[in-house]
């Protein structure tokens, strides 16, 4: 016998289901009066530092149909490349920017949209800079475990070419699935759940 490791198992994920908006964006789905406002709808205020951008896109299924019942969350660094988190040891992030947003895909067009700022570069574990990026997490009916991915910027060609995560993508033509289209200040990031253009999702 040896000592027991005594670890617990992570609670298994279950789909967010068709009514995720009741729980996470109740005002959006017509349940008013419980919370003043839905969390994560406003990311940027007057005092927030950095270049204002919008990021919009759709989440598409294997037939190319946009999901109208998905929910997208994003997490990003501030303009100086610092996260507003107690785990950020390199300095203090912009107090006027939480860096987290939440948006349902539209019931009519399936489009999500974030008004945010362009994040700065943050270091990879070995100190190499990672290109500016926004972390995405996607849940919906039919998705059993929430999907993590990243959005990079199309106007950061050099930084993207040296990005340690993008360099790990074996099939080089799939790198493009992690890079937005459009140009400053309006970027478009479509997420393909499957098919030829399937987005690279991360186990991270």
């Amino acid at each position, binding site marked *: 016998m040896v000592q027991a490791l005594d670890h617990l198992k992570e609670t298994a994920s*279950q789909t967010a289901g068709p009514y995720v908006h009741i729980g996470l964006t109740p005002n959006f789905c017509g349940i008013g009066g*419980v919370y003043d406002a839905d969390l994560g709808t406003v990311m940027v205020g007057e005092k927030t530092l950095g270049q204002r951008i919008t990021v919009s896109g759709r989440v598409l299924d294997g*037939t190319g149909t946009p999901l109208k019942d998905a929910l997208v969350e994003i997490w990003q660094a501030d303009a100086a490349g610092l996260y507003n988190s107690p785990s950020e040891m390199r300095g203090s992030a912009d107090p006027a920017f939480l860096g987290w947003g939440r948006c349902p895909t539209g019931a009519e067009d399936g489009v999500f949209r974030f008004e945010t700022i362009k994040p700065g570069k943050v270091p990879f574990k070995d100190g190499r800079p990672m290109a500016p990026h926004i972390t995405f997490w996607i849940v919906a009916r*039919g998705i059993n*475990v929430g999907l*993590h991915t990243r959005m990079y910027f199309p106007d950061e060609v050099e930084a993207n070419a040296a990005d340690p995560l993008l360099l790990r993508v074996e099939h080089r033509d799939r790198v493009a699935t992690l890079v937005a289209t459009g140009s400053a200040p309006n970027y478009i990031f479509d997420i393909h759940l499957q098919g030829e253009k399937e987005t690279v999702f991360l*186990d991270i």
Partner: protein
Amino acid sequence: MSDRANRKPETGAFFPRDRNWHAPALTPGYKTSVLRSPQKALLSLDGTISEITGPVFGHSMLGERDNDLIHNFAKPGESAIGERIIVHGRVLDERRRPVPGALLEFWQANAGGRYRHKKESYLAALDPNFGGCGRTITDEDGFYSLRTIKPGPYPWPNGVNDWRPAHIHFSIFGHGFAQRLITQMYFEGDPMIWKCPIVNTIADRRAIEQLIAPLDWANTIPMDARAYKFDIVLRGRRSTLFENRMEGN
């Protein structure tokens, strides 16, 4: 922020997710997954600062009735119809450490199994005093509790005659974005759990059992509400001793 200001900073990466414990993406018994499941391999990578960090939600954002679904949508002096229950427990990580300051958001059907949602088509009645959403934040020891009515089971279009067992949806925000989790809680003794195609997306019976809240008789409030205990485990974080450190860290 002050809640965690005095703690040792958490800078380690998270334990990898056990992908055999979680449901796979493609689970044909749950038909909607067929066209919404990635088919290519995930890109596996040790967490970077973009995943080990996460936002803090302060207790000050909570309203007084946010975790009381019996009253948070009800007209003054009225309450939701159904079996009154308390759901309580702890949020822990895989190393058994409590997760303080975790944001929990929950949603559910009413006592008749009906959701307050425009896409909902089940013929069961709406309860005018029940909205179906709530939220809370764990205390310094990782504890949380909420009050609600026991949700009813409901039919859904998947197979010809598929029903969801009574359940409460939980969304959990721990300390790192990599811990982000949505799951569902079931009730001890419900025979419908084992017939459910969504439950059965999970292959390991122990992982399913971990989603079933036992009746907690000791914590039942006499003449008021029965209690169910539901602990939630988030990914553990490596100890940071001997980690590769980032420059300036």
